[in-house]
Protein backbone atom coordinates (compact mmCIF):
# COMPACT_ATOMS: atom_id res chain seq x y z
CA UNK A 1 0.00 0.00 0.00
CA UNK A 2 1.50 3.26 -1.15
CA UNK A 3 1.37 5.65 1.79
CA UNK A 4 2.48 8.63 -0.30
CA UNK A 5 0.81 8.90 -3.71
CA UNK A 6 2.53 11.12 -6.26
CA UNK A 7 1.15 12.42 -9.54
CA UNK A 8 1.62 12.80 -12.41
CA UNK A 9 4.10 10.09 -13.33
CA UNK A 10 5.55 12.29 -16.04
CA UNK A 11 5.20 15.91 -17.08
CA UNK A 12 6.32 17.97 -20.06
CA UNK A 13 6.27 21.76 -20.02
CA UNK A 14 7.71 24.55 -22.08
CA UNK A 15 10.44 26.81 -20.76
CA UNK A 16 8.92 29.44 -18.50
CA UNK A 17 5.93 27.26 -17.59
CA UNK A 18 4.96 26.31 -14.05
CA UNK A 19 4.96 22.55 -13.58
CA UNK A 20 3.02 21.33 -10.55
CA UNK A 21 3.62 17.96 -8.93
CA UNK A 22 1.16 16.68 -6.36
CA UNK A 23 1.44 14.29 -3.46
CA UNK A 24 -1.19 12.90 -1.12
CA UNK A 25 -0.60 11.06 2.12
CA UNK A 26 -2.72 8.98 4.45
CA UNK A 27 -0.95 8.93 7.79
CA UNK A 28 -1.84 12.03 9.80
CA UNK A 29 1.18 11.38 12.02
CA UNK A 30 3.52 12.48 9.22
CA UNK A 31 5.14 15.76 10.19
CA UNK A 32 7.93 16.32 7.71
CA UNK A 33 7.54 16.52 3.92
CA UNK A 34 10.66 16.86 1.76
CA UNK A 35 11.08 16.98 -1.99
CA UNK A 36 14.11 15.46 -3.65
CA UNK A 37 15.47 16.14 -7.13
CA UNK A 38 17.32 13.51 -9.13
CA UNK A 39 19.27 14.09 -12.33
CA UNK A 40 20.08 11.17 -14.66
CA UNK A 41 23.00 9.12 -13.39
CA UNK A 42 22.98 10.82 -10.00
CA UNK A 43 21.48 10.16 -6.61
CA UNK A 44 18.53 12.19 -5.30
CA UNK A 45 19.31 15.45 -3.52
CA UNK A 46 17.14 17.39 -1.08
CA UNK A 47 15.45 20.30 -2.84
CA UNK A 48 13.05 21.78 -0.29
CA UNK A 49 11.08 20.57 2.74
CA UNK A 50 8.08 21.69 4.78
CA UNK A 51 6.46 20.97 8.12
CA UNK A 52 2.66 21.05 8.57
CA UNK A 53 2.67 24.18 10.72
CA UNK A 54 3.04 26.33 7.57
CA UNK A 55 0.99 26.32 4.36
CA UNK A 56 3.69 27.42 1.98
CA UNK A 57 7.46 27.55 1.71
CA UNK A 58 9.53 29.15 -1.04
CA UNK A 59 13.16 28.63 -1.93
CA UNK A 60 14.14 30.46 -5.08
CA UNK A 61 11.90 29.27 -7.93
CA UNK A 62 10.64 26.27 -5.96
CA UNK A 63 7.53 26.45 -3.76
CA UNK A 64 5.84 23.83 -1.62
CA UNK A 65 2.14 24.29 -0.93
CA UNK A 66 0.73 22.29 1.97
CA UNK A 67 -2.93 21.52 2.69
CA UNK A 68 -3.15 19.75 6.03
CA UNK A 69 -6.92 19.18 5.96
CA UNK A 70 -6.76 17.58 2.52
CA UNK A 71 -3.56 15.71 3.39
CA UNK A 72 -1.92 16.96 0.22
CA UNK A 73 1.21 18.87 -0.69
CA UNK A 74 2.56 20.02 -4.00
CA UNK A 75 5.72 21.34 -5.63
CA UNK A 76 5.55 24.31 -7.98
CA UNK A 77 8.49 25.34 -10.15
CA UNK A 78 8.27 28.96 -11.24
CA UNK A 79 9.78 30.05 -14.58
CA UNK A 80 10.92 26.50 -15.29
CA UNK A 81 14.16 26.01 -17.21
CA UNK A 82 15.54 23.10 -19.25
CA UNK A 83 18.03 22.57 -16.41
CA UNK A 84 15.11 21.68 -14.14
CA UNK A 85 14.52 18.53 -16.20
CA UNK A 86 14.86 15.75 -13.65
CA UNK A 87 12.90 13.26 -11.61
CA UNK A 88 11.23 14.69 -8.53
CA UNK A 89 10.30 12.65 -5.48
CA UNK A 90 8.07 13.67 -2.62
CA UNK A 91 8.43 11.95 0.73
CA UNK A 92 7.05 12.00 4.25
CA UNK A 93 8.15 10.94 7.69
CA UNK A 94 6.88 10.91 11.24
CA UNK A 95 8.57 11.24 14.57
CA UNK A 96 9.21 8.21 16.73
CA UNK A 97 10.81 7.27 19.99
CA UNK A 98 14.40 8.46 20.04
CA UNK A 99 14.07 9.27 16.35
CA UNK A 100 14.44 5.63 15.40
CA UNK A 101 11.23 5.58 13.39
CA UNK A 102 12.11 8.54 11.23
CA UNK A 103 12.41 6.72 7.94
CA UNK A 104 11.28 8.45 4.79
CA UNK A 105 8.21 7.14 2.95
CA UNK A 106 8.76 7.94 -0.71
CA UNK A 107 6.43 8.74 -3.57
CA UNK A 108 7.09 6.94 -6.86
CA UNK A 109 8.54 9.98 -8.60
CA UNK A 110 7.65 12.36 -11.43
CA UNK A 111 9.79 12.67 -14.51
CA UNK A 112 9.81 16.33 -15.59
CA UNK A 113 10.98 17.50 -18.99
CA UNK A 114 11.24 21.22 -19.67
CA UNK A 115 11.48 21.93 -23.38
CA UNK A 116 13.52 24.93 -24.55
Amino acid at each position, binding site marked *: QQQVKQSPQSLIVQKGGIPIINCAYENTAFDYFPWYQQFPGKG*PALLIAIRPDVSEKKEGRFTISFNKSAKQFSLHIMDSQPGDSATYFCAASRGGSAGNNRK*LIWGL*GTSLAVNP
Partner: protein
Amino acid sequence: NAGVTQTPKFRVLKTGQSMTLLCAQDMNHEYMYWYRQDPGMGLRLIHYSVGEGTTAKGEVPDGYNVSRLKKQNFLLGLESAAPSQTSVYFCASSYLTGGDQPQHFGDGTRLSIL
Protein backbone atom coordinates in the same frame (compact mmCIF):
# COMPACT_ATOMS: atom_id res chain seq x y z
CA ASN B 1 34.94 16.43 1.05
CA ALA B 2 33.64 13.59 -1.14
CA GLY B 3 30.26 13.09 0.61
CA VAL B 4 28.89 9.61 -0.09
CA THR B 5 30.96 7.37 -2.34
CA GLN B 6 29.70 4.09 -3.76
CA THR B 7 31.82 1.38 -5.34
CA PRO B 8 31.63 -0.13 -7.83
CA LYS B 9 29.62 2.09 -10.19
CA PHE B 10 28.67 -0.75 -12.53
CA ARG B 11 28.70 -4.51 -12.22
CA VAL B 12 27.37 -7.47 -14.15
CA LEU B 13 26.89 -10.73 -12.29
CA LYS B 14 25.71 -14.18 -13.16
CA THR B 15 22.84 -15.74 -11.26
CA GLY B 16 24.11 -17.33 -8.08
CA GLN B 17 27.24 -15.22 -7.76
CA SER B 18 27.87 -13.13 -4.69
CA MET B 19 29.17 -9.62 -4.31
CA THR B 20 29.45 -6.73 -1.88
CA LEU B 21 28.60 -3.12 -2.56
CA LEU B 22 30.56 -0.59 -0.57
CA CYS B 23 29.32 2.75 0.68
CA ALA B 24 31.60 5.24 2.39
CA GLN B 25 30.71 8.64 3.84
CA ASP B 26 33.05 11.29 5.18
CA MET B 27 30.47 13.50 6.94
CA ASN B 28 30.51 11.68 10.28
CA HIS B 29 26.83 10.80 9.83
CA GLU B 30 25.16 8.39 12.23
CA TYR B 31 22.44 7.08 9.91
CA MET B 32 23.10 5.17 6.71
CA TYR B 33 20.70 3.56 4.25
CA TRP B 34 20.62 1.25 1.28
CA TYR B 35 17.89 1.74 -1.32
CA ARG B 36 17.12 0.13 -4.62
CA GLN B 37 15.54 2.06 -7.48
CA ASP B 38 13.56 0.33 -10.19
CA PRO B 39 11.50 1.93 -12.99
CA GLY B 40 8.06 2.90 -11.73
CA MET B 41 8.86 1.68 -8.22
CA GLY B 42 10.50 4.74 -6.74
CA LEU B 43 13.05 4.25 -3.97
CA ARG B 44 12.64 1.23 -1.74
CA LEU B 45 14.55 0.89 1.51
CA ILE B 46 16.51 -2.36 1.80
CA HIS B 47 18.34 -1.99 5.12
CA TYR B 48 19.46 0.86 7.28
CA SER B 49 21.74 1.57 10.21
CA VAL B 50 21.33 4.01 13.07
CA GLY B 51 24.94 3.75 14.17
CA GLU B 52 28.15 1.76 14.10
CA GLY B 53 27.48 -1.91 14.80
CA THR B 54 23.71 -1.68 14.30
CA THR B 55 21.54 -2.59 11.33
CA ALA B 56 17.81 -2.97 10.71
CA LYS B 57 15.54 -4.25 7.97
CA GLY B 58 13.77 -1.93 5.64
CA GLU B 59 10.96 -2.48 3.19
CA VAL B 60 12.61 -5.09 0.91
CA PRO B 61 15.38 -6.86 2.88
CA ASP B 62 15.08 -10.39 1.48
CA GLY B 63 18.16 -11.61 -0.38
CA TYR B 64 20.43 -8.92 1.08
CA ASN B 65 22.66 -8.61 4.12
CA VAL B 66 24.42 -5.57 5.51
CA SER B 67 27.17 -4.70 7.93
CA ARG B 68 28.30 -1.48 9.62
CA LEU B 69 31.58 -2.34 11.28
CA LYS B 70 32.90 1.21 10.95
CA LYS B 71 30.84 4.37 11.27
CA GLN B 72 31.86 5.63 7.86
CA ASN B 73 31.16 2.41 5.94
CA PHE B 74 27.99 0.52 5.16
CA LEU B 75 28.26 -2.68 3.14
CA LEU B 76 25.46 -4.36 1.18
CA GLY B 77 25.92 -8.01 0.33
CA LEU B 78 24.17 -10.27 -2.15
CA GLU B 79 24.93 -13.86 -1.20
CA SER B 80 23.34 -15.52 -4.23
CA ALA B 81 22.37 -13.00 -6.87
CA ALA B 82 19.05 -13.38 -8.69
CA PRO B 83 17.80 -11.61 -11.85
CA SER B 84 15.14 -9.88 -9.69
CA GLN B 85 17.99 -8.03 -7.97
CA THR B 86 18.91 -6.23 -11.17
CA SER B 87 18.53 -2.61 -10.12
CA VAL B 88 20.27 0.64 -9.33
CA TYR B 89 21.40 0.67 -5.71
CA PHE B 90 21.77 3.90 -3.78
CA CYS B 91 23.42 4.47 -0.47
CA ALA B 92 22.52 7.49 1.64
CA SER B 93 23.55 8.94 4.97
CA SER B 94 22.13 11.51 7.34
CA TYR B 95 23.04 13.19 10.60
CA LEU B 96 21.18 11.74 13.61
CA THR B 97 17.44 11.35 13.00
CA GLY B 98 17.15 10.29 9.39
CA GLY B 99 13.67 11.53 8.62
CA ASP B 100 13.94 15.26 9.12
CA GLN B 101 17.59 15.60 8.33
CA PRO B 102 18.62 15.62 4.66
CA GLN B 103 19.66 12.29 3.30
CA HIS B 104 22.84 12.60 1.25
CA PHE B 105 22.98 10.11 -1.59
CA GLY B 106 25.79 8.56 -3.55
CA ASP B 107 25.61 8.32 -7.33
CA GLY B 108 24.51 4.70 -7.33
CA THR B 109 25.70 1.27 -8.37
CA ARG B 110 24.11 -0.14 -11.50
CA LEU B 111 23.88 -3.89 -11.07
CA SER B 112 22.77 -6.37 -13.71
CA ILE B 113 22.18 -10.02 -12.91
CA LEU B 114 22.18 -12.32 -15.91
